[in-house]
């Protein structure tokens, strides 16, 4: 029982963090077809900017301004970088972001040093909120929960209840039609790219102090973001949300399972001492997302809730 409640709570929070990180990419990917390899780098930039801003003022200002700053950089990258490459096709765009990730990583190392920086949870939130079966539950985790749910609602509202959101939604599925209706599609692209990067930046602001803010954080988060987006499906924020939740829960529940392959496949004659037999489900937990990626792409290439194939 304890295990289930803990796993549920942790899984949901981890899933929400993943969703924050990947919602921006889903927007960008669905609309522009660009798998932004530098997305996790923008997440890292968010954390570093928040570190700088909260150093001179407060965490709360960082929460607002760091994502905006990241968004502006994202928009600039789209305007002066991606747009140039666009003519050369999707592969070129993808490779552009691939190179951009390299460069952002290196620049961060030069500016902020190569080790972790001291970016902490604000004092105000740095206390155990409640105790559950003997383990303390930090308030900051619940704060993450609120921020990401808030973001989810805001995103939903903007996309479904505002004019700009409707245009963006239309551009998600029918970019050419939107252009024909006289909307400035390049500017929509720039805005969406910037907004997507800002969302990644926001995830960085609240994830950077919860996890670690160092130059390796982008590389560590990189691939898993794609898993969420691809599994969730193209053009579907709900899909990304579902995928992030499934991934978060799957991983946390798997950690709690100590069974080995030999326990499960023992009837096939797999012994506890053999190399394959001694692998536990728990030790495989972090690999499950990639297994899921491959399986989903093979069986259902449009993803869980996607409206079209990649």
């Amino acid at each position: 029982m304890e295990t289930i409640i803990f796993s549920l709570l942790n899984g949901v929070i981890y899933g929400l963090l993943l969703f924050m990180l990947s919602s921006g990419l889903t927007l960008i990917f669905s609309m522009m077809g660009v798998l932004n390899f530098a997305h996790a780098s923008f997440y890292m930039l968010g954390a570093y900017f928040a570190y700088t801003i909260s150093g001179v003022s407060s965490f709360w200002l960082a929460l607002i301004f760091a994502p905006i700053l990241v968004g502006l950089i994202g928009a600039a990258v789209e305007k002066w970088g991606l747009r140039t490459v666009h003519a050369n096709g999707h592969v070129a765009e993808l490779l552009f972001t691939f190179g951009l990730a390299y460069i952002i990583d290196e620049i961060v190392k030069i500016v902020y040093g190569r080790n972790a920086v001291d970016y902490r949870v604000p004092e105000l939130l740095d206390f155990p909120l409640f105790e559950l079966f003997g383990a303390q539950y930090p308030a900051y985790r619940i704060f993450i929960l609120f921020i990401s749910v808030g973001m989810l609602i805001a995103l939903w509202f903007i996309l479904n209840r505002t004019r700009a959101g409707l245009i963006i939604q239309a551009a998600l599925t029918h970019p050419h039609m939107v252009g024909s209706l006289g909307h400035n599609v390049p500017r929509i692209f720039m805005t969406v790219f910037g907004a997507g990067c800002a969302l990644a930046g926001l995830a960085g602001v609240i994830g950077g102090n919860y996890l670690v803010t160092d130059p390796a954080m982008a590389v560590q988060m990189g691939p898993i973001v794609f898993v969420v987006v691809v599994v969730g499906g193209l053009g579907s924020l709900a899909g990304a949300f579902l995928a992030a939740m499934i991934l978060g829960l799957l991983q946390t529940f798997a950690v709690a399972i100590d069974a080995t392959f030999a326990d499960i496949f023992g009837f096939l004659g797999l012994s506890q001492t053999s190399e394959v037999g001694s692998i536990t489900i728990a030790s495989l937990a972090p690999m499950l997302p990639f297994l899921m990626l491959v399986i989903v792409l093979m069986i259902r290439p449009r993803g869980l809730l996607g409206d079209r194939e990649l």
Partner: protein
Amino acid sequence: MNNPIAQSVANLAPTGGQKFRQRVLPLIILAIIVVAIPFFGPSRTVYALLSVMGINIVFALSYNMLLGRGGLLSFGHAVYFGLGGYAAMHAMRAIEYADGGFWAGFPVFGLPIIGFAGGALAGAIIGWPSCRRAGTPFAMISLGVAELIAAAGFMFNSIFGGEEGISGDRMNGPELFGLSMGPVSDVYWFIAFWLVVGVGGMYAFTRTPLGKMSEATRDNPERVEFVGYDPQRVRYLVFIFAGAFAGMAGGMAAVYFEIFTPEAVSLLPSGFVLLMAYIGGIAYFAGPVIGAIVLTYMQSMLSDFTEAWLLYLGLLFMLIVMYAPRGLAGIIFGVTGSFSNGTFSEMIGKWLQQLAGAFLAFLGLIVLIEVSVNWSNGFGEVFEPFGLHLTFANPLTWVLIVVPLALGILILRRANRETEEVLA
């Protein structure tokens, strides 16, 4: 009947001389170069670099069978390089510990064949689910598979040998061509032989019907289906061959390094081979060759001069993606091509302008990056080119950064504007 159209079509076919010049001559030149190099008495460093370049050339070319020729973007090509290499490595150990039997008579010189088979097998197994689609699904599956194999590399010690990998000794088994395989100069001949075989083999592949169909599938899979081919099957077969040649490069690496570790199947080398192929130019057969040579040199030598070599690599890659999508080969062939079609004299002015602009901008960037790196390290070292003492506190530093950078960009913009006017 004198049909002018038929005549001009007939004239399009290459003559015997053209065929020789375009298809056979480059290979012969390559062979002559690799044979000639040892007569200059290279040092160990040069031997090491050349051998690694040889390995990387085969690896990058095999990658381009997918990306350039087949239009399949893979983020996990090192898997086949690694698995082929591991197959060869296990074979090398089998040779070492063999008493009698098949392995006792197998020369180490032939190990790339084992790598080839291993890579092909891996390609055949993994390719089956991945080649159903091209484009982004293919790229993402390759990424997922690469992550899974990389994790498995650290889990299954009996195959991958754990973190330390498995090592062997190449000085075992029967000798071929009188090469003991001990000294680097012997191994050079081994690498050279398989380099020529690999390059020749992959070039020959592009001329086969399958190679042609691969390009057709890249350009228009629907039409390929209309003419009666199955694009999925074409992709699958090409994938197996690409895996096989990558495995062959892995076999060469197994013999050269005598060690294989799980990092060889990780995402890092997979990304690096993508850089090699793309920077070299994926549209040309020779592109990855150039890319492999340049990037191998950068990887092993540039780090002696600057810690920020990765940043330079990233910048080079970005510039290529943005301004020269046909890669270094595209630039080179653009220049040589202008000789033959007589536009050289028109273009030379613009090129010289671009060259000067790029050079100046690059100069400014180098100063900026190097001064920043030293500032960031913070233990008192200063960038001192030609006896200048450059720090951020020194106004001269800013002059050296801003002036060349601004001037360079200005010249580049001008040169490009002129072209646009010409086009308009």
